[in-house]
């Protein structure tokens, strides 16, 4: 059923395009916005506009950032000779929460999955090679998810970088529950997985 307001319909249609939102939830949100103070709705709208305008990928690590490079890449106290490779920006957050890692990151934006049309070309892998090639990097820690896709991606990276002199490629230990996502692991488990990493 359609509402008599075309504008309301537009908002509902746009909201249903968001992940995990069905029409019912979209309607509830749309009506909530309609009845909320004007300032609230404006702030939300503006924050979305700002998000698109100002947030981009760090040109070094691929993490989300408002500055170039990102705060982590720009931090001189962090160890740039160790790179932790993750699937998504959320994973950076998860590892940062452990407080155990002082190196830098590389965000792949996914994992190998031919079924979903994701091959090496679709991941930020050439960018990783560009960072490693000049030398100075001693370790790449692959912290992709403990799924078949994450595992295949780790094995692929190990093969890709196997001839880089002075570099070792390691994989975080399987302390992270099998088949789960890194971002949902608790801090202690993730810290243990990091410290228990092994060479691939």
């Amino acid at each position, binding site marked *: 059923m359609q509402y008599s307001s075309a504008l309301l319909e537009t908002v509902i249609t746009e909201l249903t395009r968001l992940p995990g939102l069905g029409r019912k939830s979209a309607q509830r949100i749309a009506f909530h916005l309609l009845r909320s103070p004007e300032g609230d709705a404006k702030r939300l709208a503006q924050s979305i506009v700002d998000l698109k305008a100002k947030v981009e990928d760090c040109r070094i690590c691929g993490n989300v950032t408002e500055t170039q490079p990102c705060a982590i890449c720009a931090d001189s106290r962090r160890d740039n000779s160790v790179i932790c490779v993750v699937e998504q920006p959320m994973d950076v957050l998860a590892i940062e929460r452990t407080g155990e890692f002082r190196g830098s990151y590389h965000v792949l934006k996914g994992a*190998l*999955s*031919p*079924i979903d049309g994701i*091959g*090496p070309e679709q991941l930020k892998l050439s960018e990783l090679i560009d960072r490693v090639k000049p030398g100075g990097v001693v370790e790449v820690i692959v912290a992709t998810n403990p*799924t*078949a*896709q994450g*595992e*295949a*991606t780790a*094995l*692929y990276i190990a*093969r*890709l970088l196997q001839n880089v002199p002075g570099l070792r490629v390691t994989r975080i230990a399987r302390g992270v529950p*099998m*088949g789960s996502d890194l971002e949902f692991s608790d801090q202690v488990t993730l810290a243990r997985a990091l410290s228990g990493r092994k060479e691939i």
Partner: protein
Amino acid sequence: MRLQSIELREFRNHREARFDLRGDSVLVTGENGSGKTNLIEAVVLLSIGRSFRGARDPALTRRGAATFEIRGLVEDRLGVTSEIVARGEDVAVLNGGPASRRRFLDVALCQLESAYVGSLRDYTAALRQRNRLLIAERHGPGTDPNEWSAWEEILARTGVALDRRRRTLCAEMGRNLRELSQQVDPTLDPTVEYHDGFGDSGTLEEAAVATRLQLLERARPRDRRMGWTMNGPHRARLHCAIGGEELSEGASRGYSRLYSILLRLALARAFEERQNDPPVVLLDDPESELDPRWIGRVLKLVPESSQLVVTACRELSETPSRYRRLPIDAAALASSAA
């Protein structure tokens, strides 16, 4: 583990029913259609969360009801009962081709070894991905060799784990099967053998991940032509034979049924040996196709520490006196629903 009671609401033909299952051995009697098999199904469903008939949820719900509910009261943790089920359809399971026999092994191992679940899931996922690569490469550009190896290494590693665990369990079951059959009919000579899915040339050295990697790499052109991965644990076979004769090849139904029950009892023993918690043994209507002279002997083979629930149309020809009787009839169901 001991089942104390089970409650069914809107399940199959039971509107609302509660069954007291306390005791070492329970004999559930009732005419065909009385719902005794559904009771067994409910117990299995509780432990594996899925019907062993492979039925989808709507079929499990009583006609006209929105949803069903099963509640079981157990003395110990649940989760080891499901595989120890024997019923008419078991003949079909053994004759149902290699896939259903592999599933028999997989379901048992998923309950016995938690690491098996992860290996099986990763193997299955990697297999689908490699199959997709095979098809994609037919039409599109060639795949990066490193990408092939990445998926194949997962197949090789998890494949070794799957084959090793399956073979170990088959050896345990084979040993138990021989011992058990001695007590039913010493001339039977039943065997169960695991053949991995790498052709008939024998079995691969289990530790050899590298060998499998080579085989998979060499098989790429053939697999690409066929459009799928032709070797591996997903093609393994469970050979079930009596006196050297494969059961799918013309064994009488009575022998298939006996073999099927013995195999599950052999599995029950393996469970008992590996876990301190003996499994509940469910025997659904063993009289239907089993030679009467075997029944008494088969019942004696149930592990002593196991609780046994057996169904039958009427009293068994030799019902041991220690069995508690639980008659089910339409009248009793109607009154329990009131």
